[in-house]
């Protein structure tokens, strides 16, 4: 097939041919290839450009650790995924993969000018350079940096894919299906336990896939496991996070490897609760730090062995090895035995295991001990290396087309760290190993330190006779951090690894430093001359590898993002063409435009209809709580600011609820239905909060009170009828209730029937007009609404929405909690002294009303504002100043809380919180606007219409 394929000793022997493209160019691979192995097999070694310097990059590894070969995959129809590791992309017929972060092409990238200018981009460059002038940041620096930096492009279309999600429980969850994980699964399954074995790769086997000696065992073991009913095998599944109490998040990739995904979900989020977790995540090989260690063709030794045995791909035809660890020798021997040409074995150690030397001699391989690679030639691909002895002598060059690095192994303790397990430094590994567990978890195999890759030494940077200030020896490949950068950070005073990390960005790329953290620690340790353990360790956090937003969001998008609560009247409002607005989780009709009307015109018409005739309004979303029990009145008396014990059955009261700190948290009109029964209402958004607060006091402060609280918000539909003609509309529909003003005064409640349906009929008003609120069982709400609507036709009944409701209540100065108050407003600040029971010995928040800050002068108080120009409507939230001529920044004395055009009054009205507002009556204040114009307004009482209240008592 190609010169790079090696036929024998490969798992893909006889696999079908697969056609794919990379940057639009067609290639062929084999079924089972990763994109990385398939490109290598085609002689492609240049796969990406680096983040900062745009340096040409090839593969470093063969697995999850890959920092360089990041690609975008376009699956068509808006299915575009950037920043995928080529080592984790399975090829399939028609795969369309593209390189990133280059222009105009991967081979010729103009951004690589940054590489020549590299000496001007040291660690902390952004922090130091782009500080001044400040205005340049937004306009010049940030956009330029964003254009130049970054990896793949974000997809521009909405993701059309579907994502699945599931919960699962098991006795033993094993992460990683290498030899150690498979052994653990076999052992656990024998005891009839429910076992999950999950692995991020498409093929189970882990390290065994690169070791032909284990293939027989692997096939037998997997066959055994697949037969067991209590074992679930999950390939292509990445355990990305380990959370409290053995809760593991994992994503299974279902269709990305298929040429045609059909209608299947793309990925599935598994939320698994496990009795015991076994981590068998293996270890990641460590690169070595030397000049040119990022040239395409320089890669990890173990990766070369994986490409050879798993995929049948030779990473070069004349390969050099740079080792400080035995394992690299064995990887190279495997390549040599498969017929791959070897240039040299270079090892920093003066002496190595004689058995290694003997095998090298047997294979006829050149060995240079006590030496190091000090340079790599070639730009888009390796063409040779320069070698010197550790003392700098004996410099010479050799031709080669691949360089393998064997710097030892780093156990993969990512999930262990998520679980808050302790880590302990191991001199033997030159790495942190799992220590004391924080969950019911154990580590097996290499990630627990229980696997022998042989021995070696660990060095931060290979010795070199070259000037260290001019070296490009990379530590973090993905973020382009060099050994020089780390040295600079330390010279500039960074001593903790947390600071070094942030200053240099080492370990902060999407690979979370899988191949760089330990080298950076070693470098810092040598530079500071302190043991590695004293430098500290950064913390691994989920996700272990990048996951899609789609998988995490699952079904929770669009209409299912959060529930939309709809009142029983909602369908009627929709049919009438209502414009809706969200209020808490409800959708409420905002206004009912007639043909050609905008909101302003519709609201004006609706307001006048209520003031002059009759309006109908859906108030079903009001929170409702049924308070029942012999101590109900006593309980409400302690909760609300005003007295409740003397309220007669059949009467209503406006209740004001404070938090214990004295600030208003809710309000509403409530009725006493019987001596031991109250019908409470709360604000639409406050219903759950108020019930929680009342339950809290009832259960924990006054458990002796015999009271029961029940949420009845959704049990009732509430139809508000407001306006002078209200009584005429409902009179023919109501039975068993005398509607006359004497028998049924304002702020009273009666029970009877309306349209044959039992009702709690409230005579209340949030508009200042004569008004009734018809409470009927929710299931009858639409029926009654339609009957009332019919009956109202003769009287010109008009539906109105929340916008008109807001205007009408503002004309009367009624507050909306959360709009005219903000959690720092007391009843006194809001001008609601009348609602505070001064003679009551106690209620929630009473003591706080005597706190020094609450009684101090100068507090912000709720007032009305009338603009000098009646046609100007102030912007809600606008800041208010006393003197518009003062220097900027001005002293702001308050802000506009509510502001509307009042059709009733033919002018604008507003409410505002103003410092010392009650003492400013008649004063003119100034409201600067963004347009540059400063409005002027007079402070008045927040009562703009029918101050004596004759209309609502009519």
């Amino acid at each position, binding site marked *: 097939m190609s010169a790079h394929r090696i036929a024998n000793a490969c798992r893909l022997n006889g696999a079908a041919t697969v056609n794919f493209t990379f940057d639009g160019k067609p290639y062929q691979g084999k079924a089972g290839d990763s994109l990385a192995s398939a490109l290598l097999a085609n002689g492609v070694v240049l796969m990406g450009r680096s983040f900062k310097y745009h340096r040409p990059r090839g593969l470093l590894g063969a697995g999850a650790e890959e920092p360089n070969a990041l690609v975008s995959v376009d699956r068509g129809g808006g299915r575009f995924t950037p920043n995928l590791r080529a080592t984790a992309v399975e090829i399939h017929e028609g795969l369309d993969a593209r390189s990133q972060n280059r222009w105009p092409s991967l081979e010729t990238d103009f951004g690589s000018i940054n590489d020549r200018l590299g000496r001007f981009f040291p660690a902390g460059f952004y922090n130091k350079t782009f500080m001044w002038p400040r205005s340049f940041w937004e306009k010049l620096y940030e956009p330029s940096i964003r254009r130049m930096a970054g990896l793949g492009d974000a997809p521009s279309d909405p993701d059309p894919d579907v994502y699945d999600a599931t919960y699962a429980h098991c006795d033993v969850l094993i992460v990683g299906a290498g030899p150690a994980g498979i052994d653990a699964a076999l052992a656990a399954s024998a005891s009839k336990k429910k076992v999950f074995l999950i692995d991020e790769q498409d093929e189970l086997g882990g390290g065994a896939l690169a070791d032909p000696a284990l293939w027989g065992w692997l096939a037998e073991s997997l066959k055994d496991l697949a037969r067991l009913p209590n074992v679930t095998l999950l390939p292509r599944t990445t355990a990305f996070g380990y*959370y*409290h*109490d053995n*809760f593991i998040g994992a994503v299974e990739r279902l269709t990305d490897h298929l040429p045609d995904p059909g209608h299947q979900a793309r990925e599935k989020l598994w939320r698994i609760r496990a009795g015991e977790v076994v981590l068998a995540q293996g270890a990641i090989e460590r690169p070595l730090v030397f000049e040119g260690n990022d040239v395409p063709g320089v890669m990890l030794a173990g990766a070369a062995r994986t490409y050879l045995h798993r995929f049948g791909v030779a990473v070069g035809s004349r390969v050099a090895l740079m080792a400080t660890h035995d394992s690299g020798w064995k990887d190279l021997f495997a390549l040599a035995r498969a017929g791959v040409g070897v240039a040299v074995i270079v090892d920093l150690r003066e002496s190595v295991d004689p058995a290694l030397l003997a095998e090298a001699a047997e294979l006829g391989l050149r060995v240079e001990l006590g030496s190091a690679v000090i340079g790599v030639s070639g730009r888009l691909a390796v063409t040779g290396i320069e070698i010197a002895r550790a003392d700098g002598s004996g410099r010479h060059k050799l031709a080669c087309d691949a360089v393998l690095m064997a710097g030892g192994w780093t156990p993969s303790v990512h999930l262990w760290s998520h679980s*808050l397990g302790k880590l302990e430094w191991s001199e033997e590994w030159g790495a942190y190993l799992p220590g004391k567990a*924080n969950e019911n978890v154990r580590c097996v195999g290499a990630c627990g330190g229980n696997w022998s890759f042989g021995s070696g030494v660990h060095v931060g940077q290979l010795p070199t006779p070259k000037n260290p200030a001019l070296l490009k020896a990379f530590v973090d490949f993905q973020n382009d951090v060099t050994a020089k950068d780390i040295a600079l950070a330390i010279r500039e005073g960074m001593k903790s690894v947390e600071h070094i990390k942030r200053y240099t960005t080492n370990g902060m790329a999407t690979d979370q430093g899988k191949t760089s953290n330990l080298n950076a620690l070693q470098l810092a340790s040598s530079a500071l001359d302190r043991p590695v353990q004293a430098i500290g360790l950064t913390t691994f956090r989920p996700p272990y590898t990048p996951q899609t937003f789609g998988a995490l969001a699952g079904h929770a998008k669009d209409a299912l993002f959060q529930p939309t609560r709809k009142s029983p009247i909602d369908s009627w409002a929709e049919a009438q063409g209502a414009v809706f607005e969200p209020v808490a989780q409800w959708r409420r009709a905002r206004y009912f435009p007639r043909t050609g009307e905008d909101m302003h015109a519709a609201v004006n018409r609706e307001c006048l209809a209520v003031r002059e005739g009759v309006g109908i309004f859906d108030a079903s979303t009001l929170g409702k709580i049924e308070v029942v029990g012999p101590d109900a009145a006593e309980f409400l008396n302690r909760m609300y600011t005003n007295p409740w014990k003397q309220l007669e059955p059949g009467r209503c009261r406006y209740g004001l609820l404070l938090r*214990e*700190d004295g600030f208003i948290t809710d309000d509403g009109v409530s009725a006493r239905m019987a001596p031991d029964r109250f019908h409470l209402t709360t604000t639409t958004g406050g219903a759950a909060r108020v019930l*929680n607060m009342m*339950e*809290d*006091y009832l*259960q*924990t*402060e006054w*458990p002796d009170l015999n009271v029961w609280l029940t949420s009845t918000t959704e049990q009732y539909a509430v139809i508000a009828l407001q306006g002078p003609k209200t009584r005429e509309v409902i009179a023919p529909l109501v039975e068993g209730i005398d509607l006359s003003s004497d028998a049924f005064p304002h702020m009273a409640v009666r029970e009877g029937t309306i349209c044959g349906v039992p009702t709690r009929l409230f005579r209340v008003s949030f508009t200042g007009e004569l008004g009734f609120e018809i409470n009927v069982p929710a299931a009858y709400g639409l029926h009654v609404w339609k009957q009332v609507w019919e009956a109202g036709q003769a009287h010109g009944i008009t539906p109105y929405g929340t916008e008109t409701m807001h205007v009408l209540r503002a004309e009367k100065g009624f507050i909306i909690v959360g709009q005219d108050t903000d959690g720092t407003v007391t009843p006194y600040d809001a001008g609601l002294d009348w609602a505070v029971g001064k003679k009551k*010995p*106690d209620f929630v928040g*009473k*003591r*706080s009303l*005597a*706190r*020094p800050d609450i009684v101090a002068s100068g507090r912000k108080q709720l007032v009305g504002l009338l603009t000098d120009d009646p046609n100007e409507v102030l912007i809600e939230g606008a800041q208010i100043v006393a003197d518009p001529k003062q220097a900027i920044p001005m002293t702001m004395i308050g802000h506009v809380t509510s502001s509307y055009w009042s059709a009733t009054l033919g002018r604008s009205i507003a409410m505002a919180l103003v410092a010392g507002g009650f003492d400013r009556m008649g004063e003119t204040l100034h409201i600067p606007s963004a347009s540059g114009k400063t409005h002027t307004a007079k402070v008045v009482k927040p009562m703009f219409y029918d101050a004596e209240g004759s209309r609502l008592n009519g």
Partner: protein
Amino acid sequence: MILIHCPYCDDIRPELEFAYAGEAHIARPADPSALSDAEWEKYLFIRANPRGRHNERWRHVHGCGRFFNAVRDTVTDKFELTYKAGEPRK
């Protein structure tokens, strides 16, 4: 996601069903008006915020609805035990 034992349901349920409700064993004074400003401030605002063992309130809000007390380690986020409201500090 933490698993929490509800002492009323006597069942271990996922954290999603519960809501945190602040430090435990801070009783509302019987007669707040008798308290000085400093004493009232202490009741309203001053909390222990320990590093380690913390007595705190939770509500099984999407379950039985009851408030109860718990001892949780603020470093490891592990629950040591839970007990009913009104029982002495543990």
